[in-house]
């Protein structure tokens, strides 16, 4: 059968293979029929069940859906903001008609303790849509969660009927394919949109800031993701586990430490059992969003607090705060009521202590740089290295278009702190990323430098790229190849821009943060302007291919040669891993 081909080709011209999502699908086909149930009960809904006749379509409304780890946002294309936000919560996992969570609204309950939930990350797990670990994931459950949250949003906030509507889905670009597939399965089979278009979060954010290139610093829940976008294309991504989840856990640690019951036994036993919690996730999450803040000044442990303001921007204000910090005001304590512990209490802790969770989560400045694994780099270093990995001209553009986003962007002081520390790192190190003795020798002896370095030096705004750096990058980062290759594409574009009628210079080469209206709103703009997103999938093609794909692996194999997306394409690391992409979802 024609499967993917028919769907994609019928839609018009030949799309690039990597943009066709029609050829991925989760192994669970919804058409699987339980052989034990009688035919009458398992009769699948016909595909036309929600009325394919176009008269029944609500053509004018395009729905924009943004999916994150902790919440779903939905609204109409063209609107400035989503109409509804639904958070993923444990109560959504309950059966319809089971109102236990609502009846125990009084937050004094300690019910969360009697849950005795076990398994990895049980403490926060039910507040999340997904964990990116494909082996652990129950893909069907992810689909169910999305469906339920979406129905709630449609009924409560969108107030629309169930006529099929086209949808645009904004997704994090690191979302593994099987999960993307599970989401699409759920959308297509349950809500019947005629098409679903995919947009990556960084691109939507970039459009939402009015620029074409950017450095997205997504201070997200599961992790922090730094994405360099150049001319609406994601060229480099790096991530760190330092995100919201860690912040809430650090907050728990801080609060638990101050519990009277723990203060007593602190002396004899300080067991660091990660799975042992004294307070509920809900409460710690709440306190983290309310009270936790971030010290704006650079915290070199030994250095005195004053006179060490940021090298850039708001020097005066920083020293103000620093001064305030050293005054008697710093001795102020904060009283926080706690209700989810064994016996409700109010703890009193120093104001300064409330900056600890963010300090430990995002910076960990007491450790040396080399002691961190790649996935746990402190954020300023992560941002700096992300910039370092970029080709010079791309870097120049990106560093002047830094967009902070994500839930942790609301930790007071955090954005400024990261921005300041990155600026300082650049000031100290320039763009020569290599540190240490060997690097110093390299710098001292220009002969050791390769041709490449000198070539690039001519065009860069600042510093040079040493060959050793390039080699290092190549080894560290698979994306580098891509990025390197694209520089040749970028250059003509740059020239094009310069030659174009718009002669105003673009801001580049200096650190600058810009504000985006947000990913959802960016996607709303894109849809409103009728610019097409990365990928558009037709419902029929998805459902049709899905059924065939599950039963005819040989055919899929054939396609994989052409599409570079094998049957194992659902799992990353198939033979053709270096070339296949699915929009951005194929890149990492």
């Amino acid at each position, binding site marked *: 059968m024609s499967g993917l081909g028919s769907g994609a080709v019928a839609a018009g011209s030949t799309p*690039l293979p990597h943009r066709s999502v029609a050829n991925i699908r989760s192994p669970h086909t919804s058409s699987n029929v*339980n052989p034990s149930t009688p035919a009458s009960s398992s009769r699948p809904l016909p595909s036309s069940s929600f*009325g394919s006749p176009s008269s029944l379509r609500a053509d004018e409304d395009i729905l924009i859906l943004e999916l994150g780890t902790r919440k779903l946002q939905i609204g109409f294309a063209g609107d400035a903001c989503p109409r509804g936000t639904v958070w993923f919560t444990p109560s959504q996992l309950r059966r319809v008609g089971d109102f236990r969570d609502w009846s125990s609204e009084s937050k004094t309950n300690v019910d969360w303790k009697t849950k*005795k*939930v076990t398994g990895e990350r049980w403490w926060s797990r039910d507040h999340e849509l997904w964990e990116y670990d494909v082996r652990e994931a*129950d893909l069907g459950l992810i689909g169910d969660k999305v469906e339920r949250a979406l129905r709630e949003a449609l009924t409560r906030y969108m107030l629309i009927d*169930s006529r099929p509507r086209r949808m645009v889905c904004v997704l994090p670009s690191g979302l593994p394919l099987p999960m993307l597939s599970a989401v699409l399965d759920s959308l297509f089979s349950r809500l019947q949109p005629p098409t679903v278009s995919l947009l990556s979060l960084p691109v939507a954010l970039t459009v939402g800031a009015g620029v074409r290139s950017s450095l997205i610093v997504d201070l997200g829940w599961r992790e922090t993701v730094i994405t360099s976008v150049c001319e609406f294309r994601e060229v480099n991504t790096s991530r760190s586990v330092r995100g919201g989840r860690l912040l809430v856990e650090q907050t728990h640690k801080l609060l638990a430490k101050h519990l009277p019951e723990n203060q007593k036994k602190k002396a004899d036993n300080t067991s660091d059992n990660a799975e042992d919690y004294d307070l509920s996730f809900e409460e710690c999450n709440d306190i983290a969003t309310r009270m936790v803040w971030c010290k704006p000044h650079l915290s070199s442990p030994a250095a005195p607090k004053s006179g060490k303001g940021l090298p850039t921007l708001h020097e005066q204000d920083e020293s103000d705060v620093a001064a305030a910090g050293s005054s008697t005001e710093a001795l102020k304590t904060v009283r926080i009521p706690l209700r989810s512990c064994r016996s409700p209490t109010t703890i009193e802790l120093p104001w300064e202590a409330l900056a600890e969770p963010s300090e430990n989560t995002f910076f960990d400045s007491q450790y040396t740089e080399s002691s961190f694994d790649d996935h746990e780099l402190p954020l300023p270093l992560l941002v700096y290295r992300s910039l370092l990995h970029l080709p010079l001209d791309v870097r120049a553009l990106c560093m002047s278009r830094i967009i902070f986003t994500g839930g942790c962007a609301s930790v007071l*002081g955090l954005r400024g702190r990261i921005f300041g520390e990155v600026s300082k790192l650049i000031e100290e190190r320039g763009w020569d990323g290599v540190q240490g003795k060997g690097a110093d020798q390299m710098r001292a002896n220009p002969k050791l430098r390769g041709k490449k370095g000198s070539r690039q030096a001519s065009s860069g705004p600042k510093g040079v790229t040493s060959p050793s750096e390039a080699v290092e990058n190549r080894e560290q980062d698979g994306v580098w190849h891509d990025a390197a290759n694209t520089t040749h594409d970028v250059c003509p574009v740059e020239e094009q821009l310069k030659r174009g009628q718009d002669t105003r210079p673009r801001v580049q080469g200096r650190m600058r943060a810009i504000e985006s209206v947000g990913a959802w709103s960016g996607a709303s703009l894109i849809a409103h*302007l009728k610019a097409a997103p990365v990928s558009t999938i037709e419902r029929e093609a998805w459902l049709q291919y899905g059924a065939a794909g599950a039963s005819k692996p040989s055919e899929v194999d054939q396609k994989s040669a052409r599409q570079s997306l094998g049957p194992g394409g659902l799992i990353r690391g198939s033979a053709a891993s270096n070339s296949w992409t699915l929009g951005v979802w194929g890149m990492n």
Partner: protein
Amino acid sequence: MAPLNPYTYIQCPCSDSASLGRPSDATSPTSAEADDEDNTFDPRAPRANFSLYPLEYLLYCEDCHQIRCPRCIAEEIATYFCPSCLFEVPSSNLKSEGNRCTRSCFQCPICIGPLSVTSIETPPSDPNLLAPDRAATQHSTYSLICSYCNWSSTEIGIQFDKPNSIHAQLAKIRNGGASRLTAKERKERRKELSHRGGEAAVAAAAAAAAASETSGGQDMDLETQFANLKLFYNSQLADPNAGDNGFSSLGDLGFSSPSSLSRIMNLYTGGKLHDPRAKSKLGAMREAITADEGLLEPDLDESSLISQLHRSDFLDTASSTQVCSQPPNLGEPHLHGAARFNSSLRPAPYLLRTKRSKRCPVCRHIISKPEAKVQTTRFRIRLVAGSYIPSISIRRLNLPGSNGPGAPAILGDLLEPLKPVHFLLTFKNPIFESLKVTLGAPAKTPGRFPSKVTVLCPQFDIDANTDVWDEALKDNDRESSGRSRRRAGTESQFQVEVGKIWERGRNWVSIVVEVVPASLKLEQGQDLLKEDEDVLEIPMFVRIEWEVENGGDDATTGSGRDKDQKEKRELAYWCVLGLGRIKQG
């Protein structure tokens, strides 16, 4: 532990039961090799919760003879209304005015109680002003007040000049009292400018914008930034100077046309530019440069907010619940961390609600239709599943030998592990035909702690739900003939017999299920009990069969058949019976 009343949940057949029982296993996409064990519906699987419903939540399509749940039904909106003022809202307003009441209905940002408009009494400086006639002429202001928690909009620095159209007034005031231009006003002002002075005025406006940009564009709220961006992109795409740059044709490209993707948003994804013209098109659209075009530089210095937090009490900050129930605030720049303060909260206009008609997605027949009037909660049509499929009620039986003599079975009693216990299931037939019921239950409940289950009478007939008056007469008959002897006597006098029903009534039948609850003892290294893992739930497959007169609306489809012949119908589904909690330890 809270006591647990026995309950019944039904799984709508629209859910894909094949994939429910086990976690996703990428290696076995086919279910062919799955044996009987795997096909047992596991009510404890996380996915099961998404397909189980109490009977009252289910509807029924008379034409398809199928249960319909909220997941497999098509909805149409009958009425939009505000739950506070009960005014009906025309559907055309929804797109333009949003999903909230635009009259004066607001919820308290602290406690979600309703807010009311109250005039603020300014203490007169001159006692003579107290005279009532003078007070009336005095210019007074108004605030929104919560009668539950005494919150007042003055706490966020907001007062109103008029007691009506609060929604419109609120849109023009920021927290703290500063006024702002709404998007509409901005648009009009822009239009006016370009009308009046043409080029010069536009240039002046641009200069002003540039000036505001240098000051950081701090004043630019989200709504304005979005509007500016929209305007900027539109102007870029329509720039006449751009000539044949292709971007003017952006509007022609269908949103769903896959070929257009590459050219616009994702020019480089392929690594190669396959349309040479695309290259030249790219140069046409530039980036936003000024605040007027939507470019905004945030102020990353949050030291004043940190100082504010420093001065604040814990209760001066808003809880996550309070923040989440706030409608998006488009009247401010990105709030980021500032959203945490109570002083940033705003009165929340009530979300509108809908009344919905429901159709069967397959045959499109209406199966639920509400009364149009907002004030009533009645339905014109409502085919509830309870009128078509038998209800199941559960009661614990107290038999001699099982619980010990004389021990009364109290509702919500914990179940003793490893001790046989009996439950009485009563099936009630709601339809006018007699039903043949076949039950199937696994001998052991799925999960880590399998309890033994024996349905003593898995097959039985239930008499039709005949007219109530007939029944009254029959009942009298029965009473005198002693047919319902069991009702009068005590349960403990009777023995449980395999293959026999326990008791039968007009349109109901009781049968007995014997259960041996599992022991919940944990072995070394076993995970702790999960939430509700101590609840004894048994999955049960119910198949009902009945015969109907082949006539009426089915006559046309049953072509060639004898009209007098009866037609067989059947319906089958999984349900879950929650019996009680097993005693731990």
